[in-house]
């Protein structure tokens, strides 16, 4: 039995799944993550900020594309949580 929860954007900016264009995504679909794991970067005010997961579980999907502009509070990823 599992449920899904969303990780929300803590501030507006540009969403990146990689620390630099050539590297692998910080987390992959299906990957198990813990609270505090860095799942993405958001570029805001010419600085990059880590988005840490607020949820423990399995990455079900990313709701935005790499490089998309995101609004504050927008869903970034769906995480399957074990009940």
């Amino acid at each position, binding site marked *: 039995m599992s449920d899904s929860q969303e990780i929300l954007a*803590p*501030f*507006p*900016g*540009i969403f990146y799944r990689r620390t630099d264009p050539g590297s692998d995504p910080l987390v992959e679909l299906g990957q198990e993550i813990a609270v505090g794991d860095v799942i993405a970067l958001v*570029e*805001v*005010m*010419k*600085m990059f*900020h880590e988005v840490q997961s607020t949820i423990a579980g399995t990455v079900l999907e990313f709701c935005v594309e790499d490089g998309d*502009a995101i*609004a*504050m509070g927008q869903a970034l990823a769906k995480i399957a949580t074990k009940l």
Partner: protein
Amino acid sequence: MITVVQPGLYTTVQDRGRFGFYGVGFPPSGSMDQYSSAVANILVGNNPDAAVLETTFLGPTLEFEQDANVALTGASVDITLDGISIPLWTSVSVKKGQVLAFGGAIAGVRNYLAITGGINVKPMMGSRSTYVASHLGGYEGRVLKPGDRLEILQDSEPKEVRVGCEIPEDLRVTPRAHQEIRIVSGLCHYLLDPQSQELLISKPFTISTEANRTGYRLKGDQLSFVERRQPFGAGSDPSNVVNLGYPVGSLQAPSGLELICLMRDAVTGGGYATLATVISVDLDILSQMKFPETVSFESVSLETALQLRSERAQRLRNIAELVNSIA
């Protein structure tokens, strides 16, 4: 002393600003939302020049090593004291050892934290404001970091303000997703073609993700400039002019592609046509806006802009009277 446990996203020490050095390239800096900042100072009995903390999207977690009265204004946000929510726009008593923690802004962008006495950093060129680009003023000329320790000024004589003193709803800032922003005509407004002059005040513009204390980029329809032979000394793009001074609030449109509004850490001069200037009271409003919120520009006269500025000053005097009367 106050210890910075977590600094938040972009937290700086600011006051009203650093004036008199614009001509040599130093913008005023100071609180982006001057009104909210001033109200926070009033609520703790500070003089209007006292330094406050300005937060951006996500504020800090602070541990107080002394008793203090504080007030928080600006963006809508959940703020807790030892885990219990405290009201904004209200004077609050903090005891030694308590921890003040900001959540993320819910509406708006910036919060102002005033502490009785004001934050004591060394004034630089007459101001405690941080100008990060030049590593000047504030706390070591930079944004706060974990472990920083903020000193509270003790030698000033703050007015007594009753704890729990609350600013009425209609005198608070209400962030909205769309705002009318008033502008006065710029020195180079005539370089926009007539259609673009009309477009500037009729079509909405969207705040982009590139928006900070130096400038806000806004996206909207393409603006075009009158055809002319570029004068000697001007760049080749139609949006270029011979270098001139940029007022704070100046709107420019490099190549007509997007608007840049200069904010309180403005670039003080350059070679883009200055199309219009956002009036000072509406820079407060713009400072609380973020991607993907929208603005419409409304053209007003300089007299109206100055009138609105003096009305803001009067509103602050009324608030000070109100707060003092219930002390």
